[in-house]
Structures are given as C-alpha cells and as structure tokens.
C-alpha cells in the first residue's frame, strides 16, 4: 500500500496569503494513501527539508508530494532531500500551488479549492511513480572532426590539446579548406596562408590527431559516447607511407592542362598533383578522371620516375572503422553556382551576368586567387582573358543572396567585408584603377569592420553605388555593366552604365554539396538551404538535436573566419566536457517498449526526433523470424514521449510520465 507524505509550503506569505494551507493539509490527509500531511512556512528551508526527511524515515513514506512553487524551480531541491533520506528521488513530485495558484488567483476560497485538487492530482500521480535510476552510458574518448578547413582544424587542435584523441577526416587531398585559398583577410589584411599553414602543420604533427585526407565518412551508427564510424579512404594511387613528397612525379606528368580547383580554374595543374605548395599532407594524388594512364592505359611516367616506388595504379578505396565518442561537423561552405543555377534547389542562375560566357566575369574566390601571392599570377591582378591589368573593376554584391526571386533569401554576410577588401587590394596593386561596388546595403557589423569599409571608400577611393546590376554585355574588349544607382534621381532614372575590364561577383555562400546526405548519416537536421540545424538558435548554437554531435563553422550558417573559429572552440569545449568523465549520466525519463505487444508498424521510429527507436527481430526456437519490434535506445532517447502518443496499441510508455500516472492525474481532477 502506498504511504504518501504531503508537505504544504506557505512560501512565507506568497502561498499562505491566498491559499489556506492548513486546510489543504487537512484535506490532503483525507486522500486515500496519504499517511502524513503537514504545512510549514518554508518547505525549501533547512528545517522544511528536515521535516520531509524525518517523515520519510519515521512514517516509512513510499512517496512524497511537496505542494509549493513550480517544479521547474525546486524539484531538484526536494528530490535531493528525498534521496538523502533514502527515498528514490523520482518518488517525489511537486504540486505547483504558487505560480499556478496563489500568485494568479485572488479569491481565497477558489485558490484553496484549486490547491486541494492540484495536490490530489500529484498524490494520485506519485502513488504510481516508480523508482528510477540515472542511466549510465560509457564514453569512448575519441572525437571525430568532419572537415579540415579552419573550423575543423581549430576544433581538432583544441580537443587534441585538451588531451583527447581526434580523428580528422577531410575529403580533399589536403586540409586547409577555403582559408588556404584566400589572399589576405579582413579587417587586418594579414596573409591568410601565413596564419593558417602553421596550424595545418600542427595538426599533422599532433600525437593526438589521426588525419585522414582524401577520405569521407561512409556511415555512422550508435549514439552519444558510442558512435561507430566507417571512413572511406579514397584511392590516392600513391602510397603515402612510401611517398616522400619530393614532387618529381608532378614535374614529369605530361598531362598539365587540368584546371586547378585550388586556383578556381584560373591556373592549371597536372594529373598527379598536390593541390598547393603548402598542402598537408604534402603527398600527391592521381586525378583518375584526367590521368592518361587511367584513361588510355598508356603513360605510367609518374610510376617510372618515382624514386621510392610509391605510385600504385591498382590501389582501391579502403575503409577504416573508428569507435568515436563525439562528432564535430565542420564541412564548411561553397559558393553559389550562379552560372548553372542551383536547379536542385529550384533556383535559376544569373545568366544575364555572363558568367562562363565572359572570362573576365569572376567570382570572389577567383579574385582571391588573383590577389594571392601563391596564385596563378603571383599576386598580380590581371584579367583572365588577356592577362592585362584591369583599369576598371566592378564588384557586384548580393549575387544569389537576399534575392527571394531567383536566389536565396538570406544574407551571406561576409561579402560586404570581402568586397571592401577586394576593392582595397585592387587599389593597392593597380593604383590608377577604379573600383566600383554595386551594393544593396553595407552590413559591416563586427569589430573594426565598419572602419575597414570606410577605409576602402575614403582612403582607397572605391566608388560605392547603391543599386543593382541588370545586365552585363560586351562592347569590344570591354564589359558593359548596366545597372541602376538608386541614389541618383533625375531624367536618367538612376540608370548607370560602366565600361569595365573585369567584374567580380560576390556570390552567395552555400553549404557544401552532399550536406544533406551527411546530415542523414548523422541523423541531424538541416534547413531548407542545407545548413545544419543547431539544437537551439540562441542557447545551444553549437549542439545538434542528436546528443554528442556538434557543429562548427559555415556548415551551420554563413560565418566569417573569427566566428567559425569561435564556434569550433565552442564545439571543442563541448567535446572536452563530454569526455571529462568515463560515463555519461542521463535523467532516466525515457520511453520503454512492451515488446510482447508491439506490432512493428514503426510509427514511433518515424516520429522520434532522436532516432532512438531501433528494430529488433524476434525469432522462434528454430530461428524463424516471428516479428520485428521496436526497442528504445535509452542512450539516445530524450524522453519527449512522441512515440508513446503515436503508438496505437499503447505498447510504449514513458517513465516518469506514464499512462497510469496521467490516467490517475486526470482522475484526480474529478
């Protein structure tokens, strides 16, 4: 039989003024199963908690109801007190007679009657509570970082420097990401590679980091602390253990006319190549799609010249499997493909800007390569068509961004800053040239950002035109940029036409190709644009809704370098926090399946936001499959109960908010 203790708190005057607490205690004393009911000024005070502890021991209570403030306020307090007296903390419930009663009602009779009912509800609930025990989950102290751009590098280094193991997976032959492509960075104009490459080297040398480049995550299963990750190591055709990185193979490779991805097509590379001089690891791969040996079977020069015999045409993709405790996703961004449009997303391109048609219409990353000392022009701003220094350059912002009609509705955020930087760099290198910038707004919120833009305009003389460009066409070897200057009125209607030598489009930032597939492998959410979804936009911007998976950098939303680095360090801190003990302890509010009655429709699986429903096969003695039934992975379950309400046969229940409990609570309201 239940032996319930009820403790009515006055909360000083807060409850006592409107609720007749002695009367509530007297009524509660008459409820079936209640063996002890008292009221007291401050239940949460030491003496108040002492009363509860004493009663638990003296009256051998099997459950406790504290009628006081909101359980969101003091439930932990009273549960702890119960635990200290030897009662399982989950056998304690609170009736909220302050926030939900005394503070919101004025008439004492009504408030007291309501308080009595609220106590009755919790008495009936607690009679059906069961002792629950925190769920312990072991933690594998090894993190996986997906993506070796600046965010991934930062996260990996922070975790590794925190003393934990890291596996870093990068799909390209080298880590470094887009930051390695940049010339200088705003607002300080320090050289991007100069600040990045030491960190890349640190990654490669770090004893706690295992680096897999030219590799992709094949599959992920498991849950927080216990992921099983399979990684595909794509066939490099080069044995990186043997390879010394001497570069002879690339020098001798006869296939030299392949547009370089690193140089955004402005420079050329060979079929066996390292993406750039400072690549980490500095070991080449063979681009099988362009290699003569792979295309025709003839050639084999690189194998012949390799002094250590590292070239291996027969190499195949291999797989490694890693036990992982936490995952940081840092897959970064790409630029909006405005030439082809993004048909998969139902977005048209900007054919009117002539990209692909006119060699001298380039995008922001191409400009970076032109301005970079390691770039195809050695840092000279020369136009791609004829290699001449452009006298007039037009920069167009918001190409694809902030364009609901044929682009993306969001602001790509970094363009205002990098276009200012581009204009500045251009002026520094082509002193007599003119830089025009078409803009919608200037968004330069950031430390020293607005000052930077002002410098571009005021010191370096960039001409900012507020308006949009409607069309670009050629006249002779010039590009005619036709647009509107909305600040100009008059008969011309603000129409402007600029004769330019080169046009730079600040195209929108997009998440990397394949992000949706990766998100599905990881069971994390993504928005309509493919950006990965954080657990809470304000308070949990680094976590995902899948416990143990964190986000860093532009995969979560548009970001500049300092923001990406900051989030990466945040993710690393989350991982280190998770790894700070050998076991995870979770509140035991989880769902449970009655497998003997489950019919395996798996609606529960479909409504579970955490992929906590697993399938289990039931077999008879002869090994024949009898049924497939659902099973809750308590490590993943967050206890929302969506599965319970979806189950037609009531074959799932939620600990702490069970069917029996709710049934009786409603009954308590008669």
């Amino acid at each position: 039989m239940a032996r319930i203790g009820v403790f009515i708190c006055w909360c000083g005057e807060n409850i006592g003024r409107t609720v007749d607490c002695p009367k509530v205690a007297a009524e509660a004393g008459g409820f079936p199963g209640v063996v002890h009911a008292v009221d007291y000024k401050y239940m949460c005070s030491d003496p108040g908690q002492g009363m509860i502890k004493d009663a638990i021991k003296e009256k051998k209570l099997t459950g406790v109801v504290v009628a006081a403030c909101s359980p969101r306020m003091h439930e932990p307090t009273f549960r702890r007190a119960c635990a200290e007296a030897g009662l399982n903390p989950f056998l304690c419930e609170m009736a909220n007679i302050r926030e939900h009663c005394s503070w919101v009602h004025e008439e004492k009779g009504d408030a007291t009657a309501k308080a009595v009912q609220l106590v009755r509800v919790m008495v009936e609930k607690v009679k059906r509570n069961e002792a629950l025990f925190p769920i312990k989950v072991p933690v594998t102290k090894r993190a996986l970082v997906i993506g070796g751009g600046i965010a991934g590098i930062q996260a990996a280094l922070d975790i590794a420097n925190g003393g934990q193991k890291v596996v870093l997976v990068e799909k390209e032959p080298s880590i470094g990401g887009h930051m390695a492509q940049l010339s200088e960075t705003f607002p300080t104009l320090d050289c991007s590679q100069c600040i990045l490459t030491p960190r890349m080297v640190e990654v490669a040398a770090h004893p706690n980091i295992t680096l897999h480049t030219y590799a992709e995550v094949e599959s992920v299963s498991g849950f927080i602390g216990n992921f099983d990750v399979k990684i595909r190591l794509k066939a490099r055709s080069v044995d990186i253990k043997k390879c010394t990185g001497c570069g002879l193979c690339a020098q001798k490779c006869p296939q030299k006319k392949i547009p370089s991805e690193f140089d955004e097509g402005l420079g050329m590379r060979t079929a066996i190549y390292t993406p750039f001089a400072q690549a980490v690891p500095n070991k080449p791969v063979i681009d099988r799609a362009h290699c003569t040996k792979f295309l025709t079977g003839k050639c084999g020069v690189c194998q012949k010249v390799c002094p250590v015999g590292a070239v291996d045409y027969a190499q195949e993709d291999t797989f490694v499997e890693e036990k992982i405790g936490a995952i940081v996703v840092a897959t970064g961004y790409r630029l909006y493909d405005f030439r082809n449009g993004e048909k998969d997303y139902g977005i048209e391109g900007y054919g009117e800007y002539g990209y692909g048609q006119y060699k001298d219409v380039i995008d922001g990353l191409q400009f970076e390569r032109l301005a970079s000392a390691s770039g195809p022009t050695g840092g000279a701003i020369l136009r791609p068509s004829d290699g001449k220094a452009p006298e007039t350059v037009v920069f167009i912002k918001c190409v694809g961004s902030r364009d609901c009609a044929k682009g993306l509705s969001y602001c790509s955020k970094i363009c205002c800053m990098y276009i200012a930087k581009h204009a500045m760099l251009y002026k520094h290198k082509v002193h007599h040239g003119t830089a025009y910038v078409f803009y919608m707004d200037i968004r330069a919120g950031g430390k020293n950002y607005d000052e930077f833009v002002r410098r571009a305009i005021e010191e370096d003389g960039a001409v900012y035109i507020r308006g949009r460009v409607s069309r670009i066409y050629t006249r002779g070897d010039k590009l005619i940029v036709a647009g509107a200057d909305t600040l100009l009125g008059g008969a011309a209607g603000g129409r402007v036409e600029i004769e330019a030598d080169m046009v730079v489009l600040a195209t929108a930032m997009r998440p990397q190709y394949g992000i949706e597939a990766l998100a599905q492998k990881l069971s994390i959410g993504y928005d309509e644009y493919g950006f990965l979804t954080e657990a809470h936009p304000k308070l949990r911007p680094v976590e995902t809704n899948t416990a143990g998976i964190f986000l860093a950098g532009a995969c979560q939303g548009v970001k500049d370098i300092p923001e990406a680095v900051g989030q990466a360090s945040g993710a690393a801190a989350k991982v280190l926090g998770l790894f700070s003990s050998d076991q995870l302890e979770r509140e035991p509010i989880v769902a449970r399946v009655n497998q003997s009655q489950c019919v395996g429709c798996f609606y529960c699986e479909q409504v579970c936001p955490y992929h906590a429903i697993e399938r289990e096969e039931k077999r008879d003695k002869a090994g024949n499959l009898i049924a497939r039934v659902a099973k809750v992975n308590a490590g993943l379950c967050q206890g929302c109960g969506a599965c319970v309400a979806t189950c037609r046969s009531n074959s799932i229940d939620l600990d702490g908010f069970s069917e029996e409990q709710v049934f009786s609570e409603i009954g308590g309201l008669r």
Partner: protein
Amino acid sequence: MAMLLARKNLHALLRGAMEKKYRVVGPTRTAGIVLFAELSDPGALCLDELNTQNSIKEFFFPKSETLLTYTLGKKDVAIADDFAPPRTVLIGGRACDARSLVALDRLFGWDYKDKFYFKRREATCVITLACDRFDEACFCTSLGFGPRATEGSDILLVPAEGDAYIVEAVTDKGRALIAELEDVFTEGTPGAEKVAYPEKKFDLAAVKPWLERNFDHPIWKEEFLSCLGCGTCTYQCPMCHCFDIVDEGDIHGGARCKNWDSCQFALFTLHTSGHNPRPAQASRWRQRLRHKFVYYADKFGTEACVGCGRCIRNCPVRLSILDKLVLIGREAAAAPAPPAGAQPRGVTKRWRATTSIFRI
C-alpha cells in the same frame, strides 16, 4: 374451443401490459435493423422479420451487468449491490429463443444460483410466436424440436387461419398474465395452424460422437480459415453465455461488471505467461463446436445450440455452423464410430490425402 388472440389485438395486449406497469420488450425496427428492445408504445412492435438481430438473452443476461458499485474512501470501500429488475413482458421471441432460456436456466443454476439472471427470469413473462416461415439458416428441427415447441415460453402464440393466434398458456406465470389482461383474448374455434417447419439437415446423434473422436482432424485445418475472430456469432447467439467479470473504475471508485465474452477472441484463453492454448482461430472454432455439442451436452443433457441461425446470418464472412454440422454429419456417416474397444479408424480417405500448410 381454444383461447385466441386476434392479430389486431396484439397492440391491445401490449398496451394492457404497459398500463399494468410492465416493461414491454419486443422486436422493433431501429436504424434499418430489427432488434429486441423496450417498446415505447405498442406501435413500435415490428414482426416483419423472421428473426431479430439480437437474441432475447440480453434481457436475462445483459451485455454488461453491474454486479456492484464501489466507492473508495480513505481506508474503506463502500459497496452497493441492490438489484431489482423491472417486471417485463417479452413478446415476439421464437421457439428457438424460448428454448435457449431452459438451457440457460440449467447453466446459471446448476451450482451457484446466479441472482441477477434468476431475478430477471422471475420478473419476465415470455410470450413466444411460433414461426410461419423459415429461411436457409434455420435448423431447429435438426436439433430435435420445432418452431412451435413450448419449452421456455410462458405463453405460446401459434399463428392460425383467420388472422388470429392460438394462445397456449404454458406456465402459471403465463396464465396469470392472461388473467391480468383477459380482455384482449377471446374463446373460439381455431383455424388451421400456420406453422412452417424447416427440413432436417443433419443427424444430430452423429455429431457428438464424431466430435469426441476427432479432436485432431483435417477439418479443423481447412474449414475455418476465414474466421475473423470477432464475437458476432457468440454475441448474437441466444445460448452463448461466457462472461468476463471486470472491475471498471478509477481512483474514486467504480463498478464490477459481468460482461459478455467470446471464445472467438484471441485473448479469451491468453495466459498471463503469454502462452495461448488456443493459438489459432480454427482452434477457437473447434472449441465453439465442442462446447455446444459435447461439453454442454455432457453436463446438461442438451446442446448449447437452438438452431436460430443468427450466427450464420450475421457472420461477416458467411462461415456457417450449419454447413459445418452438415459436413460433420457426412463425415460421421462416411467413417462411423468403431465398436467399443476397437482402435479409432482415423480420418476418411478424402481428408487423409490433404496435407495442410496450416497449423492450428
């Protein structure tokens, strides 16, 4: 000379009963079907259908009978179990319906005397109508009685030429009711009885021995596959009497109810362990037949079937107990019972040739 009730006086009879504060129950049309129900006025009586959808058993053994109600106090439980059924005239049942009452009397009274059943029985006067027609589901004659049998009735009305019923007072209760409502009856020379007898369709005597000998028989694996496992047959049956006693309530109190239950439900024999000794629908059908024609007969000397045909007319998949009894009759004729002491001969050739993929 005999006592007669002119057909046009039927309503007067009912009105008389109502005036004497009887609850009057009879066939009435509701939402397109004809049911036994309390009649609000004599005009609601509907004798269009050969047989009603429900049987009369629910006026003696209701689908849910409250045995007691209880209220939970702090330390004690308050119980109320007063029971006083209304005085009732039940008109319009058939000879098969009435016969079911005799069999139910034995069931509910052989050991513990079921207070609720017998109080309702005592309070009810049963006026039965002999049948002037039958349909293909009727088989009372196969069970050894007929459409003008008097068993279980207090008064039997036999339709006769001349738009009148011949009134047979069967019991004292019936005679008392006739005395109470004497105005509506007349004395006269009866016309010829208009009673229709269905033909006999199987040999009842062969059924029980065959069932006793053939607990395992391919029939069970082949003939009952379509059964959906609903309770229609058993709930419409005037004889099926299985019930479940449930406490229905919540934290304040509740009621202990005696509710109909059905051997055709998968949960009927489910053990707490999870084991179910009747795991397949076919095994539940076998139980239904054996209960009706073996166990009940052994215990009470009569079959728990009155041939009313309701289970046949209402089965959603047209599984007919009559067809199966005819089949068993044929089987029994093809493989007669062995003389005492001999080894059973087993199943007939036709069945032996069948290897079934079904398990029961």
